[in-house]
């Protein structure tokens, strides 16, 4: 396989990848959601209950792994199979070739098997003079093209029909019109049929190994897998030991989740249960470990062994949608590939791909076995950072995060930057002089997103006691007598002070006494996202220290809340005192929206209705949806309290591209995700985009400005503060501006 950088460049240079995958992801999401909804209705239970039930079955197997492996082996052997445990890919390949030599076979027909890809079987066979023929249509296309799968279930999803027609025309030496997909599909039948009949070995994978009975469960839609199993005189199964389930009934639970999550079908056309060879046939089962036992011994990632290879995690992954599986993964693609690659193929192979993850959390929402993928990927990222493996932007990120830990240094730096860039400040952005802006690589790497204007004074200065005029109180005073510590969020304090300032005004107008702890800095999320967990822990602890007390803590940044509520307990799991303190803090910390809707600051309907009915749309910060479980709280508040029409944003909860450190390490990927987001905004035909996470806002504003769109991007606090009785502008801070339009 080519190095990651090359794979990434190839993917970014091919427009087919992005257009094809965006349309695939959208179509898949719709079918999957419909199917899962129907399943919930059929079963009378939620998707969460169903997947947790199956996850518990899979975990139970791994708790007694040897027992189930032995039981499967005994039953399969009794049915006439030869079961062999293999440790490494080399052992697996050698075992396969021995079987082929014994059977005097030089042609192998292959049903789809990711394990055969994992062990690099095709190359190995070709080197020793045995011809493997892929028989799954997608895999066959890739074999003809000399490529590897870019998706676990839809291996050729990165290819457009025009490319496939051209390939067939060239290889099969007759004309294939690109619009005649039917003809391209049917040619597989005629081309492959003779291979099935002539081959000495049929290879298959297995979707499940059923300990009870010693059966292999094997699903497919095309029917090729059945032929690979049945027709040749020898059937070889290559399968990972994590595929075990105890009983047939357990396998049916997998069936219910698998196809719905994989292709959005209720069930695949064929669900085959193979127990031993047919009369006159030999069957060999190669049970592969290749890092699986080691994975099971690592509590941070063991749950990834529940994976049933449905590919759902790729189908909702924003960076996957831009670059596809050849870059987003190694042999195993998608989010799961960012986890298991370290164990199956080594840390060097995952170093590049893992740097693409935006930590949006979408994969964990759709995973049918409830694998906490986002958290696991950050563990892998930390392993990568610690290992010193080469990772894009790694050195700079390490230095940057190290420096960012020093609050005073950061303060000074931003003040200096604010002064230095004063002459360049225009329309809320920093206007980079053309002599730099038009040059490569600057134009490609930075040009898509105008950098924000850096104020000379951070929000904390403006918010010093007595500096900001008392706002006219609202009629409703839900926060009367309450003391609120405002957690500014490090970025908006220094790069978008209008956001915390508007938050303070709003809270004060609702009756709160707002305090701004002077020592506050950063919750640690950027460090955690960068795989720098020690630095992240230091920052969490520093934040806990500065926010001590019993008062409510409110932040305009939902990302900080996600960090305190969700990630800090994980980071501090070995520090009981710290863990308890972080949970206490998380218990009294709110993001603005939850403070105003579910918390003490509930505003009565219509209390911020100033009569302005200009429609708005809402981007749902991905982690708020995926990690904090927020749904349409902002939309509801805007409708009920502000009285404004809200046009639903398509793909509202999808990441905007700012997540993780992707926008710094892989700006072209981030730009692709942003482009998809802004395309959705265009479809709403609104000119005001509201969201509540400062990172998203800076990113979206930069993208709106650079693309010349006429859209104002506002934090919820700014929008609401702009509707206060005495509001003159949406922000109220002299040196801040709110949009790029």
């Amino acid at each position: 396989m080519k190095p990651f950088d090359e794979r990434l460049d190839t993917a970014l240079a091919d427009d087919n990848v992005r257009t094809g995958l965006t349309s695939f992801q959208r179509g898949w999401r719709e079918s999957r959601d419909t199917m899962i909804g129907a399943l919930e209705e059929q079963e009378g239970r939620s998707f969460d209950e169903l997947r947790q039930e199956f996850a518990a079955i899979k975990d139970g197997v791994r708790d007694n792994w040897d027992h189930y492996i032995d039981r499967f082996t005994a039953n399969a052997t009794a049915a006439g199979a030869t079961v062999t445990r293999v440790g490494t890919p080399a052992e697996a390949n050698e075992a396969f070739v021995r079987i082929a030599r014994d059977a005097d076979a030089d042609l192998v027909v292959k049903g789809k098997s990711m394990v055969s890809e994992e062990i690099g079987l095709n190359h190995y066979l070709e080197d020793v003079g045995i011809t493997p023929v892929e028989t799954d249509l997608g895999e066959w296309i890739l074999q003809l093209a000399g490529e590897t799968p870019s998706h676990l279930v839809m291996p050729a999803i990165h290819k457009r029909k025009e490319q496939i027609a051209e390939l067939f025309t060239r290889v099969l030496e007759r004309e294939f019109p690109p619009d005649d997909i039917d003809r391209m599909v049917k040619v597989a039948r005629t081309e492959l049929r003779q291979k099935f009949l002539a081959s000495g070995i049929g290879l298959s994978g297995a979707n499940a190994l059923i300990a009870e009975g010693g059966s292999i469960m094997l699903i497919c839609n095309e029917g090729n897998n059945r032929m690979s199993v049945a027709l040749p005189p020898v059937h070889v199964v290559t399968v990972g030991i994590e595929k075990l389930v105890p009983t047939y009934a357990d396998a049916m639970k997998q069936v219910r989740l698998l196809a719905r999550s994989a292709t959005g079908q209720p069930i695949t056309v064929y669900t085959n249960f193979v127990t031993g060879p047919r009369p006159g046939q030999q069957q060999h089962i190669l049970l592969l470990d290749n890092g699986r036992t080691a994975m099971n011994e690592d509590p941070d990632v063991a749950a990834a062994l529940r994976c049933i290879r449905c590919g759902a995690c790729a189908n909702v992954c924003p960076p996957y949608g831009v670059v596809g599986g050849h870059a987003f993964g190694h042999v195993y693609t998608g989010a799961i590939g960012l986890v298991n690659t370290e164990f199956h193929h080594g840390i060097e192979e995952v170093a590049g791909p893992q740097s693409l993850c935006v930590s949006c959390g979408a994969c964990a929402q759709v995973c049918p076995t409830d694998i906490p993928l986002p958290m696991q990927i950050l563990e892998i990222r930390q392993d990568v950072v610690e290992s010193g493996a080469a990772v894009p932007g790694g050195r700079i990120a390490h230095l940057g995060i190290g420096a960012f830990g020093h609050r005073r240094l950061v303060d000074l730096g931003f003040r200096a930057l604010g002064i230095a860039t004063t002459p360049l400040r225009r329309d809320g952005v920093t206007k980079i002089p053309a002599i730099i802006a038009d040059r490569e690589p600057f134009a490609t790497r930075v040009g898509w997103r105008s950098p924000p204007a850096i104020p000379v004074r951070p929000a904390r200065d403006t918010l010093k006691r007595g500096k900001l005029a008392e706002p006219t109180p609202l009629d409703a005073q839900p926060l009367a007598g309450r003391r609120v510590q405002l957690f500014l969020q490090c970025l908006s304090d220094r790069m978008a002070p209008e956001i915390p300032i508007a938050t303070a005004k709003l809270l004060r107008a609702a009756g709160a006494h707002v305090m701004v702890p002077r020592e506050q800095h950063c919750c640690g999320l950027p460090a955690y996202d960068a795989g720098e967990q020690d630095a992240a822990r230091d920052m969490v602890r520093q934040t806990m220290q500065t926010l001590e007390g019993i008062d409510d803590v409110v932040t305009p940044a939902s990302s900080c809340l996600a960090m305190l509520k969700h990630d800090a307990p994980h980071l501090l799991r070995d520090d009981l005192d710290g863990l308890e303190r972080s949970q206490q803090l998380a218990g009294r910390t709110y993001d603005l929206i939850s403070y105003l809707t579910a918390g003490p600051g509930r505003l009565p309907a219509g209390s911020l209705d100033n009569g302005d009915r200009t429609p708005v749309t809402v981007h749902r910060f991905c982690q708020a949806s995926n990690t904090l479980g927020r749904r349409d709280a902002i939309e509801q508040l805007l409708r009920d309290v502000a009285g404004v029409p809200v046009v639903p944003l398509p793909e509202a909860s999808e990441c905007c591209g700012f997540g993780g450190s992707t926008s710094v390490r892989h700006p072209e990927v981030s730009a692709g995700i942003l482009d998809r987001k802004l395309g959705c905004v265009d479809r709403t035909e609104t000119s005001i985009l509201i969201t509540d996470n400062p990172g998203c806002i800076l990113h979206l504003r930069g993208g709106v400005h650079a693309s010349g769109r006429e859209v104002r991007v506002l934090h919820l606090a700014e929008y609401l503060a702009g509707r206060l009785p005495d509001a003159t502008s949406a922000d109220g801070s002299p040196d801040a501006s709110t949009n790029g339009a």
Partner: protein
Amino acid sequence: MNTTTAPNLLQRFAARVTEASSTYLEVAGWQQVVEHAGGYSEVVAIAPSLAAAQPEVRELLEAAGVRVVVPDGDDPAAEVADVPVAIVRAEMGVAESGSLLVSEHALGDRVVTMLCHRLIQVVAASDIVDRLEGAAEWLAARNGQPGFASLMTGPSRTADIERSLTIGVQGPDEVDVLVLTATDPTATTEDDA
């Protein structure tokens, strides 16, 4: 499995079968199955296990002037390669998914369902179960034997090219599910439950 089939079970089964792009048909007995098959082709393959268990199917077909192929020779695949129509008997139907559980241990049985163009799957109404667990029970009761059982749900398909759905790939292009509504005594002679 010989209990009377609840009408809504059959309805649900029919709905799922149709959604899987199969054709659903209720028939009174094997004579109607034969007429259905003969309407499509003058050559019909029968799975060897069915031919052995219910020899009258072959007789009925031949009486209707149909040439019958039973692939039980040395090279069963060659005997039925691209045969236009084939008939198999399913062990059960699953209402939840519209699947037919077909047990096909010998190569001759397997090639029939793999290589034909139109596959006729016959199941007794009394053998239709509610949920997939019914199929799991069947498998568990036999400990996986006789060795190869498939839940078949519709004609073969792919969406590997641009996620565009194409029906009829490497397996059958058409699947007809014929439910024997149990009045015909020969419909249940094979029942072993």
